[in-house]
């Protein structure tokens, strides 16, 4: 069967998506609905002196206008730190911060009315430099100061503030620009009052249950009065972890007693969600004469922007991943997330590990040059392997094939040059990375699923229910594959659930296949036991030879089968009217918080590993880079759906290429300069070559089916590999991404 684990069945939602009938959140309509639009601050930092909503209210077709005064419950929200106003009250802290929301009979009227609202601002000087913002005398964005999170790792002699002598020392400062998710489906949702004081929100989200808690708190309702349902999601990549349309849409729906639809325009989408943290990274690597690392000092500044979002956890990841997949005896790594008046930054694919990867991999290239060896060789000499330990002291207790991944990439042929133009130079670059999967630092993460087995129309049917967010990654199909694998049933229904069903946790942290898969599997195992118990009772005497072999029984082709695969009894006959129904909650193994002083602790559930090779041609006259070839090698533990997996790896790789060469949300004095797809460029089909994907399957013995989280890794080392290739081609330092023509050519 192609539709068990390891097969590549077609997407369950693929036919609907490809024929245009799949409903994304922006496609939803409801009789009697109004449209809502948001007024956003044109200033990065200003005091609000007055808001006059009357001009908007007077416009024909306008039905409601809300400001901060109308929020009935908690006026702030946030998943980790509750510090972000639903609507700005006394102060705006970033360009694009929501100030008021208008509802009208049609979207044009709503947008026009929002622009008619008069807001008197006293413009204040914005804090925009994240490094300067950490100075004690910097103006404070929030009363508690600008350091919103600081994570420190001290290992070896760094615990005493000392470092051993090193024969070779390289230093560098690196900069990463602000990347955006650019999921294609913009933020949108439909809120429908339930007629009983509550509301149901259909929204594109990564975690409906955490949305529910935050919405209910701001509406002043009990959680069970707010039902959040997954609507079709057009991509996520971390950008849908924070709230967007949720609270205003629900509030207006309750005020008017009418359904409310909100759809962000593309420009508004750039303002309406968090971005990847821009970063400044200062590194010092010390090595012995052969290039073996002795110590690493890393100082990482992450610009968190105006509000916290998930910055504390991102700073934790940046610190724990600061030296990459390399063995380093003495480490001092410090990651600081900083408040500024720039746009808020939060979760994006890679979650705090993309920025350090560009830093430590650039350092490895410098070290290779200083020692006089090959860039791959320097990495092989320092590569972590199973049994090795991280700067946190955590020992890698499953495969860590860093050297193998790099070796496989190095063995690939390099394409021949097609141009004899001396102004076009070719370079090959390598980078590798590791990434924690699941939530870290002691968070008790769990996922719940229900599996029912019954006979319908003479045939066994399994139904799996969970609130897992399908954001395009394919978790719907994974659930089906697991049920088919465990129960051997041809007919499997996959049912999505809203917040009235227990949480599956979010589609983030490379955790969904692992965690939801773990929950579905656990429920299936309980169902299996019940089926075997029924079979033992039924078959008992007549098949005595099988009685003691029950542990060797299996389920396949709608039957209970023996160890040889021979059918013992059909499930339809066995079950009859019986319905087996099991709900399971799956937890991953526990993790520890990091010691606040030295950052030591087994903070991560598990790690994945990947490496990239990029081949580029650089035009030395124009400073333009063409990516000629991309290859990724990744240990995926177990490929549940190899076709879907390859799609994830190719897609993540191209996102990383975007950060290397073109993607940057440009912000000057707190003003966003390019909030549109004509100003913010993502790779087109013509910008990237094919992606050569090489899967390694070294099962993680601690994981369901040996799975390793895979979604983020391809987006981490691809950026660094492209930068390394450009470095190899040009001999330039390439210490900033995205790489600009002026970084490669002296135009003066």
């Amino acid at each position, binding site marked *: 069967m192609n539709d068990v684990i390891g097969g*590549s069945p*077609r*997407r369950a939602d*693929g*036919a*609907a*998506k*490809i*024929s*245009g*009938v*799949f*409903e*994304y959140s*922006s*496609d939803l*309509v409801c009789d009697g609905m109004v449209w809502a639009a948001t007024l956003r601050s044109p200033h990065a930092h200003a005091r609000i002196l007055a808001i006059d909503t009357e001009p908007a209210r007077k416009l024909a077709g306008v039905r409601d206008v809300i400001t901060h005064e109308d929020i009935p419950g908690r006026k702030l929200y946030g998943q980790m730190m509750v510090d972000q106003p639903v609507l700005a009250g006394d102060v705006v802290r970033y360009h694009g911060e929501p100030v008021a929301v208008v509802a009208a009979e049609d*979207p044009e009227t709503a947008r026009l009315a929002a622009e008619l609202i008069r807001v008197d601002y006293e413009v204040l000087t914005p804090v925009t430099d994240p490094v300067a913002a950490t100075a004690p005398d910097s103006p404070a964005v929030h009363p508690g100061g600008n350091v919103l999170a600081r994570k420190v790792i001290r290992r070896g002699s760094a615990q005493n503030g000392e470092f051993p002598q090193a024969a070779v020392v390289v230093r560098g400062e690196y900069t990463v620009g602000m990347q955006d*998710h650019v*999921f*294609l*489906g*913009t933020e949108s949702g439909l809120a429908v009052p339930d007629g009983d004081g509550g509301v149901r929100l259909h929204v594109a989200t990564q975690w409906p249950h955490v949305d529910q808690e935050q919405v209910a708190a701001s509406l002043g309702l009990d959680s069970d009065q707010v039902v959040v349902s997954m609507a079709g*999601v*057009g*991509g*996520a*990549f971390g950008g849908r972890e924070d709230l967007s349309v949720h609270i205003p849409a629900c509030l207006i729906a309750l005020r008017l007693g009418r359904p409310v639809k909100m*759809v962000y*325009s*593309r420009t508004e989408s750039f303002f309406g969600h968090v971005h990847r943290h821009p970063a400044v990274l200062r590194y010092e690597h010390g090595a012995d004469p052969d290039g073996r690392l002795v110590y690493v000092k890393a100082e990482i500044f992450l610009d968190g922007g105006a509000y916290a979002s998930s910055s504390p956890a991102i700073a934790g990841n940046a610190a724990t991943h600061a030296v990459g997949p390399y063995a380093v005896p003495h480490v001092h790594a410090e990651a600081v997330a900083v408040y500024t008046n720039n746009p808020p930054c939060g979760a994006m694919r890679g979650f705090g590990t993309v920025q350090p990867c560009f830093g430590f991999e650039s350092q490895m290239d410098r070290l290779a040059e200083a020692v006089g060896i090959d860039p791959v060789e320097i990495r092989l000499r320092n590569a972590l392997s199973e049994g090795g330990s991280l700067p946190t002291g955590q020992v890698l207790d499953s495969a860590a094939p860093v050297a193998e991944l790099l070796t496989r990439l190095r063995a690939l042929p390099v394409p021949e040059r097609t141009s004899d133009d001396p102004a076009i130079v070719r370079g090959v670059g390598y980078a590798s990375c590791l990434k924690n999967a699941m939530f870290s630092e002691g968070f008790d993460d769990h996922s719940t699923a229900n599996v029912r087995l019954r006979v319908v129309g003479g045939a066994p049917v399994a139904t799996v229910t969970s609130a897992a967010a399908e954001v*395009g*990654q394919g978790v719907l199909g994974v659930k089906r594959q697991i049920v088919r694998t465990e129960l051997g049933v041809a007919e499997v229904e996959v049912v999505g659930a809203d917040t009235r069903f227990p949480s599956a946790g979010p589609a983030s942290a490379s955790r969904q296949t692992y965690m939801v898969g773990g929950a579905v599997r656990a429920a299936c195992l309980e169902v299996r036991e019940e089926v075997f118990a029924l079979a033992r009772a039924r078959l008992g005497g007549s098949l005595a030879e099988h009685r003691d072999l029950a542990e060797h029984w299996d389920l396949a082709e709608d039957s209970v089968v023996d160890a040889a695969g021979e059918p013992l009894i059909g499930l339809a006959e066995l079950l009859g009217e019986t319905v087996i129904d099991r709900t399971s909650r799956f937890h991953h193994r526990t993790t520890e918080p990091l010691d606040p002083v030295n950052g030591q602790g087994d903070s991560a559930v598990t790690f994945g590993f990947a490496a990239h090779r990029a081949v580029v041609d650089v*035009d030395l006259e124009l400073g*333009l880079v*063409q990516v000629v070839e991309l290859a990724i090698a990744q240990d995926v533990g177990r490929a549940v759906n190899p076709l*879907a997996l*390859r*799609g*994830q790896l190719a*897609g993540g*790789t*191209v*996102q990383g290429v975007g950060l290397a060469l073109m993607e940057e949300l440009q912000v000057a004095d707190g003003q966003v300069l390019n909030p*549109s*797809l*004509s100003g913010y*460029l*993502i790779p*087109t*089909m*013509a*910008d*990237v070559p*094919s*992606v050569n994907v090489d899967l390694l399957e070294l099962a993680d013995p601690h994981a369901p089916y040996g799975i390793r989280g895979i979604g983020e890794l391809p987006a981490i080392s691809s950026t660094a590999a492209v930068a390394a290739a450009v470095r190899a081609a040009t001999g330039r330092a390439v210490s900033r991404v*995205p*790489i*600009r*023509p002026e970084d490669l050519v002296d135009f003066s």
Partner: protein
Amino acid sequence: MRISVTVDGKTHSAEDVWAGESLLRLLRDRWGLTGVKNACEQGECGSCTVRLDGVLVNACLVPAMQADDREVGTVAGLGAAGDGPGLHPVQRAFLEAGAVQCGFCSPGMVMAAEDLLRRIPDPTEAEVRAELAGNLCRCTGYQAIVDAVRSAAGGDRDRAKGDRAKGDCAKGDRAGEGRLS
């Protein structure tokens, strides 16, 4: 003004169409034809790609009035909705190749691919990449999409004979425009 448009063979009409209203808004919000997607409304992403009298256009850039009394083809008219043999060969190829992830780009991408195969029945990889560069995808990295278009090419080749594009591709000006850093 009042306008009337034939969409996938069925006539729709609308009253009080205003000067700035786009064909995209007309299709989606007035007539509920949400197989046409809205991702940027600036002509940059190709999610709203449709055929207007046989010519590929971004519906967000076409004033609704320009579509009056003309024919629009959307993904919904390409193959029968749902699974199975009703799907167009290009749609089937996308499914088989794993070219659909979140799927938001898929309706526009399929329209552009179908149009490409009418004009170039057996494109090279470079031709596919150059011709479809006006359709953005954020999930797949494009590899599976390119594979899908090329695998569909065989099936489309015969059909394309005698059914060449009725006009030049309106998005053809992006061909070969591959952006560098």
